[in-house]
């Protein structure tokens, strides 16, 4: 009984953390200094890995931006006000001085091109660019299943507090995620050529969006996380390289995660206690 009380208290504390986040109608200003107007607005939630990827690209390149949080735990992306911005409730969405754009991989390409970022992010040389485009296209039906699996397995119940989805849905996403991770480990990482995806010597926008997909596994229970990563040593090394190369921005883009992971863990624990 005492243990249940402790868990409930911690769970409530976790929920308080969540409720302190500003709604997307208010704004959370980036940590980057802005000189003059901050033209780029990013709507989303860094709980969602494509939003994290966009934020990380901006931070790593000191692009002034303003993050307007659409709290995913409260399904704010489904609100009518959000649908005015994007009728399909997709996150992230950017507003670049009136130019509204959705689709994370498109947003990353657009930011790289319009802000004239260093070439390695989205190379101008046509074959190098094609290799990055290939990864970004492949991403959608493949490694993006990681987020889908994490969402169905853990987030639906532990953050949205809804009933557990059907076993077939979770299993299907898991299979696609594992097949994708195997392909990344077996084919897409060529450390003998270079430390980044497809043997590149510098990171591209593909490295950013893929890395944010892998970090989403932090929401899984530890043994499961361990198993996914430790079976894939090249992937572990690559992820570590990306994190170090983009320090301290990588950590900054992920800073909302620990509290959310804690809240999810406590909910999971409370479900186990009430079941027993």
């Amino acid at each position, binding site marked *: 009984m005492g243990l249940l009380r402790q868990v409930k208290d911690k769970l409530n504390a976790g929920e308080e953390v969540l409720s302190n986040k500003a709604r997307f109608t208010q704004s959370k200003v980036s940590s980057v200094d802005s000189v003059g107007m901050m033209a780029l607005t990013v709507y989303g939630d860094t709980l969602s890995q494509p939003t994290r990827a966009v934020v990380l690209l901006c931070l790593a390149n000191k692009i002034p931006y303003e993050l307007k949080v659409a709290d995913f735990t409260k399904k704010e992306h489904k609100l009518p006000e959000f649908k005015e911005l994007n*009728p*399909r409730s997709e996150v992230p969405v950017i507003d670049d001085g009136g*130019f509204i*754009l*959705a*689709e*994370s*991989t*498109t*947003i990353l*390409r*657009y930011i790289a*091109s*319009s802000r004239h970022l260093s070439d390695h992010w989205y190379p101008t040389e*046509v*074959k190098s*660019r*094609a290799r990055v*485009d*290939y990864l*970004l*296209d*492949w991403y*959608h*039906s493949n490694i993006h299943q990681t987020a889908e699996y994490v969402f169905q397995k853990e987030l639906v119940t532990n953050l949205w507090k809804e009933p557990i989805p059907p076993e*077939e849905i979770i299993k299907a996403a898991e299979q696609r995620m594992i097949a994708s991770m195997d*392909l990344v480990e077996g*084919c897409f990482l060529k450390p003998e050529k270079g430390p980044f995806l497809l043997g590149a010597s510098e990171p591209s926008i593909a490295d950013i969006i893929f890395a944010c997909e892998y970090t989403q596994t932090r929401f899984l229970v530890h043994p499961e996380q361990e198993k996914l990563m430790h079976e894939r040593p090249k992937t572990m090394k690559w992820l570590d390289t990306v994190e170090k190369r983009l320090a301290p921005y990588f950590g900054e883009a992920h800073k909302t995660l620990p509290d959310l992971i804690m809240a999810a863990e406590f909910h999971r624990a409370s479900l186990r206690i009430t079941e027993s």
Partner: protein
Amino acid sequence: MLTLYGSLRSQPTRAVALFCLANSIEYQLHFIDLSKKEHKHPGFLAINPRGLVPAITDDGFNLAESATILRYLAVTRSVPDHWYPADAKRRARIDALLDWYHTNLRQTARYVFTKELQETVFRLPPAKKEEVESYKRNMIAAMDTLEREFLTEGPFLLGASKPSIADLLLACEVTQTQLLKKPDLEALLGPRPKIRQWLETLESNLAPHFSTVHSAVRKTAEFLEKKRNSKLQSAL
């Protein structure tokens, strides 16, 4: 010499072939018979480890992913700007459609495959009813977005006056529905006049190539219709 690996029965391969024909880009089609699992042969896997079609080899450079192939060809063959504009914002709009295609409109092909091709043509065990229904729901949602959002102004996607690579890729996905039973096709496209108009505009704008790349799908549609009729007759 540009080699295109795939089958014109596959909708993204069609889109690449159509782009080449419309821009007089010489290519050689290396037919990969999916029903004979030729896409899993080692020779093909060496070009595309995922074993999916389409894939290209361009003077030794191997590339897969239809949207990527279209972008690559648009840039390397210096085609007219409207196919993949150089302007960052116009380009971003097309990129967004290409991305949306992956997660939304591609459910069309999955629905058509599981409903009409999986057993009959590919001789695989039938898909679960819930799976087919799920693809159907997603396909309908995507068609609604196409009709009510992306084709509100004509003649091409997002009100463009000339077609882009997104028009080709998305249209070739929609035309896969020709393989559905006639009543199902009518129920799907009947209430969506903007989609029908868009397809007609593409057909006349890209004549005769649009019709040429769709000959395989027409033949397959005829074959399926014959099979359905003969099943019906033997049941009577």
